[in-house]
């Protein structure tokens, strides 16, 4: 029976080709837009993960704060190898771990000055670093030498420096005094969205010297996992293991370390070392509003279009049903139940929705692939907000299928009212309908 229903539904759709093609095109357009917007937000999320886990955070961070007095906290882990040694066996998902110094400094050069978030890096421990950083001037290997710095294009432009030039970093030490260090520009890297606007890299040793920290002190041990999706699970496991090993561990708090440093830790009444295990999502939470905003804007746009399409579907089906009143009356007379009429008309909407959505998804995927292949460089302001330099739409089969299912489902739901209307027709009235 379902095969016959499908056949009738398909043939009925084919009977009014122009009308149904127009409606299918509208459904198709909305689906394509939905696929593109999903690709855009996924692309942003992936770009954020990609760039953030190089520039600012590991997938999981074993970090912490050290307070000499209750009002002066520094984002450091003293003797980091001790807590790390105590728990590293608990992370079978680990690909590699690397200590990163954390700090900020004012960079002053002949051409200008700016505030920079500094990462103290040991290149030999970070095999993933050169896969993300694209050097456009200078040499990344130079960053292995003390007293150097890696800047991004915009920073170099703003400071008016190029590889080989020297600039001065000025930072407050943990004891409250200011210290400076002259560093030579080792390399200038290609921008990576918003995050590369304020992050710069210096050798870990140089950062320690700037902050007058002992060897063995770092900002965080950044853990890179085989699957970033395991981050929260691994973080929870590490917290438990560190506590068990006798370390003071802060409760989970989905905020970046610098927000905790500025607004929370200094106000707390404790001294000494506390460890803080965070995930990349915690560290990037201050940027998640961008993805949320784009997602919501997209949803509103798609929502409005879907309402228009739904009205079109209701209207078209109502017309189609009115035209087939006699036929429906006949089918009811010869023994078709109301539920079967309902199923038949819903099936038409479902087929229309599925066809339109599938075409739209294919078109959306093709457009996305074309845009990705073209490698469109985004305008600078958009780079900041989309967290990527080149437009990249991340397409996942599952999400595309979900978009198709969502639009098809909505189309079918929109058809409920005209379908119920068709099913409730009295056969005697329907058979004698003239129209």
């Amino acid at each position, binding site marked *: *029976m379902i095969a016959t229903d499908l*056949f009738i539904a398909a*043939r009925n759709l084919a009977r009014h080709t122009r009308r149904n093609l127009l409606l299918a095109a509208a459904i198709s357009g909305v689906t394509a837009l939905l696929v593109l917007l999903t690709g855009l937000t996924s692309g942003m999320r992936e770009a954020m993960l990609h760039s953030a886990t190089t520039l600012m955070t590991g997938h999981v961070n074993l970090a912490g704060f050290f307070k000499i007095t209750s009002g002066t906290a520094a984002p450091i882990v003293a003797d980091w190898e001790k807590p790390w040694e105590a728990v590293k066996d608990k992370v079978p998902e680990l690909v590699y771990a690397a200590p990163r110094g954390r700090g900020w400094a004012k960079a002053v050069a002949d051409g200008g000055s700016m505030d920079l978030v500094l990462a103290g890096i040991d290149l030999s421990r970070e095999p993933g670093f050169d896969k993300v950083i694209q050097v456009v001037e200078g040499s990344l290997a130079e960053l292995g030498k003390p007293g150097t710095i890696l800047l991004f294009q915009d920073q170099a432009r703003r400071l008016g420096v190029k590889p080989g030039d020297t600039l001065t970093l000025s930072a407050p030490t943990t004891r409250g005094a200011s210290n400076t260090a002259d560093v030579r520009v080792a390399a200038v890297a290609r921008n990576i969205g918003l995050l590369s606007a304020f992050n710069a890299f210096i050798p870990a040793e140089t950062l320690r010297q700037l902050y007058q920290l002992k060897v063995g002190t770092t900002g965080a041990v950044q853990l890179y996992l085989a699957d970033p999706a395991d981050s929260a699970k691994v973080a929870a496991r590490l917290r438990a293991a560190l506590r068990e090993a006798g370390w003071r561990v802060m409760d989970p708090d989905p905020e970046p370390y610098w927000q905790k440093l500025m607004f929370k830790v200094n106000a707390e009444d404790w001294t000494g070392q506390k460890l803080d295990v965070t995930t990349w999502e915690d560290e990037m939470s201050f940027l998640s509003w961008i993805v949320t905003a784009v997602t919501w804007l997209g949803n509103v746009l798609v929502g409005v279009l879907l309402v228009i399409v739904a009205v079109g579907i209701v209207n078209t089906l109502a017309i189609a049903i009115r035209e087939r009143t006699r036929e429906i009356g006949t089918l009811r007379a010869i*023994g*078709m*139940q109301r539920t*079967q009429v309902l199923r038949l008309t819903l099936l038409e909407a479902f087929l229309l929705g599925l066809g339109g959505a599938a075409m739209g998804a294919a078109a959306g995927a093709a457009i996305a692939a074309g845009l990705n292949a073209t490698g469109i460089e985004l305008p600078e302001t958009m780079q900041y907000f989309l967290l990527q330099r080149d437009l990249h739409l991340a397409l996942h089969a599952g999400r595309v299928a979900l978009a198709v299912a969502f639009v098809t489902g909505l189309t079918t739901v929109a058809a409920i009212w005209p379908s119920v209307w068709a099913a409730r027709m009295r056969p005697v009235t329907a*058979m004698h309908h003239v129209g």
Partner: protein
Amino acid sequence: MPEPIVEAVDVAKVYQLGKTEVQALRHVDLVVERGEFLSIAGPSGSGKTTLLNLIGGVDVPTAGTVRVDGEDTSRLTERALTRLRLDHIGFIFQTFNLVAVLTVFQNVEFPLLLQGRMTSAERRRRVETLLESVGLAGHARHRPSELSGGQRQRVAVARALVGNPPLVLADEPTANLDSKTGGTIIDLMREMNRRDGTTFIFSTHDPKVMSHASAIVRLEDGRVIGRESAQGAEAR
């Protein structure tokens, strides 16, 4: 003594047309025995179609009772009434009322699909047999729009009979056909009636068509004014 296939007792049907009440049928009593080939005759507006609708369970009476194959139609739920139509009654319409998007074969097969009792192979055999008996074996793959009026009505006859219903109702089955084709359709229905014992009730105002009936019930202004058997009139 077998139960009559149709029994209408003091049936009335009133339609509300705006503020006006239309008495389509009043005090109709009718008994149709199994195997009859009964014609309901009368001028336009006499209530023929209304009576067929009530017998066919596509409508229910305002007053009185209609029993079809032992079932009181006004006591049945919508679902049960639909099932009664599917299993016990075949319909032939004046304007054929075939499903335009289905082929001849699919149109005839449709009631069997609704019944859901036969396998695909059984359905195929049954449909092919019927198409052969109505002379349309070579047209199974055609669509209704590719057939003549007479051929379409043959398809309708086959569709009405495919589920082996004990009762077939035909509302002016020859009205849209020329007299020769109409005669062929009536002959076909008569043949099915004789061969399978299926009861046929058909409405007409064509005396030629009436002449084929085993009995004629005459309606006028919503009342039965007489019943004639093939042998002669039985005034009521």
